[in-house]
């Protein structure tokens, strides 16, 4: 069997070895449902679409995805299994990618389990299912971006709590990169071109574009690049910090 696949399977099944997986999925489903109906005004809007459902995903992911990612490497470091893992005949990349894909599949599964809302909206009206599909795609990609950040930061520490807090902060910055809250800080010290570049890094604007049914290759590429960059950083961090 391909070693990446073996690592992937072990990682994914480790989520389900403890109640963590079930707790996460239940909370995700409860929160995404209640946000849609209470905050999003799903019924009151009188429109057959899932915008009230998707618009809260960034904020849900902000806290839930770092919770999924925090154990990826911090736990390996704390228990010492990182030494075991990295002395098996696999490359660093296989390990980093397998772990990320396992976490991503897990979040993907949670996302898949929101299907009743899709059935509901199709029962109530005639939504544009193409837009709903791109909404799911955007949501999954954004979760991947958050996860890659969380995986990298999880490798910097032995403590899952620190990994979680660091990830929430960095994810928050990426989420709001296009908003005054973040940009004003940079305006004070950085040239305008850099400020514009930072504004372009916002998860939220790229996600909104995709989830409204506009699949621009640049938005897809953006998330894939974010994932690639943070996974690369993940491998570098492990290499630098494995001696501690």
């Amino acid at each position, binding site marked *: 069997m391909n070693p990446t696949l073996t690592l992937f399977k072990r990682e994914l099944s480790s989520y389900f070895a403890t109640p963590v997986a079930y707790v996460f999925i239940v909370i995700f489903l409860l929160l995404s449902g209640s946000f849609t109906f209470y905050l999003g005004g799903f019924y009151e809007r009188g429109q057959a679409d899932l915008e009230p459902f998707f618009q809260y995903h960034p904020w849900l992911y902000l806290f839930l995805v770092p919770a999924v990612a925090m154990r990826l490497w911090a736990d390996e470091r704390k*228990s*010492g299994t990182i030494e075991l893992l990295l002395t098996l005949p696999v490359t660093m990349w296989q390990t980093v990618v397998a772990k990320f894909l396992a976490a991503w599949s897990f979040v993907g599964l949670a996302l898949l389990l929101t299907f009743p809302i899709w059935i509901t909206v199709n029962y109530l009206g005639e939504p544009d299912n193409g837009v709903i599909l791109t909404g799911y795609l955007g949501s999954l990609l954004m979760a991947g971006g958050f996860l890659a950040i969380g995986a990298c930061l999880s490798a910097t520490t032995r403590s899952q709590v620190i990994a979680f807090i660091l990830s929430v902060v960095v994810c928050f910055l990426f989420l709001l990169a296009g908003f005054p809250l973040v940009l004003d800080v940079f305006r004070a010290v950085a040239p305008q071109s850099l400020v514009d570049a930072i504004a372009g890094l916002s998860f939220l604007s790229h996600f909104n574009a995709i989830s409204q049914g506009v699949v621009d290759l640049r938005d897809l590429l953006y998330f894939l690049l974010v994932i690639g960059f943070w996974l690369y950083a993940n491998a570098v961090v492990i290499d630098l910090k494995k001696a501690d």
Partner: protein
Amino acid sequence: MIETSALTKHYGRFTAVDNISFRVEPGEVLGFLGPNGAGKSTTMKMIAGFLAPSSGSVKVCGFDVESRPIEAKRALGYLPEGAPAYGEMTPRAFLGFVADVRGLSGEERTRRLDDVIGRLHLEGVLEQPIETLSKGFKRRVGLAQAILHDPPVLILDEPTDGLDPNQKHEVRTLINAMAKDKVIVISTHILEEVNAVCNRAIIIAGGKLLADAAPAELEARSRYHMAVSLTTTETEKAKEALGAIPDIESVEIDPLDERITAFPRKGKQILAAVSDALKAQGVAIRELQLETGRLDEVFRSITQPHTQEARA
């Protein structure tokens, strides 16, 4: 075969391993000795390919650990310090995982798994999460993982640490049984272990290689080597008798148990002389023995000047 040349590891300004070169051939069981923080674990981590050396190189079965890591790691079984394992997995799942990553499949996979499970007596705990197992079983799961693919090179970092005397004996028996055609490196600070399993010992302290010899040769460096010790009810009379033997350099009496030790002059054999002298004086001896040397004393005299409290 393991070959290290000028292996060095710095942590910032601290030198954990300083220019260590050695070569281990199949059939050798090398004991890595040294005080805590001497650089034993760091050296083993570099051999296992976990840490990259700051300078110098390691070859495992001819493969450079840095430029051909996959081949080197395939040839290697490694038990990290503390025998880490995924606590939520059962030994069966964990060993199955390691077997899959190591590319074992089909009949060979089953055969190897059965073999290590039998050798380490894991049958009774196969379905229990590893985190619920006793220290001894955890260590055995770690060992099972290391020998699963029957590697030509084994690196075991403190394989018997925390085991009870029976378990220690079992692990040593296991190591001896595998020793014939493998390269085995074990680290320990239990000196009796060296005599029990190793046919070669390396002493390091402060990151430097200080001695590399067979355990018997190390013992011969002890001032107790070839000394004669005895216990008797008539301590004073015995001391007098020994004082008259010209080949004896000095006589010491242990204040605790009154054991008398006679140290010979360099290169002299004194056992017969001691025995004769005591018989002639009519001293009743309870027990008399020729000392081979004390490894702990040699260990202390070699490492003490270099010992510094440092990271392990």
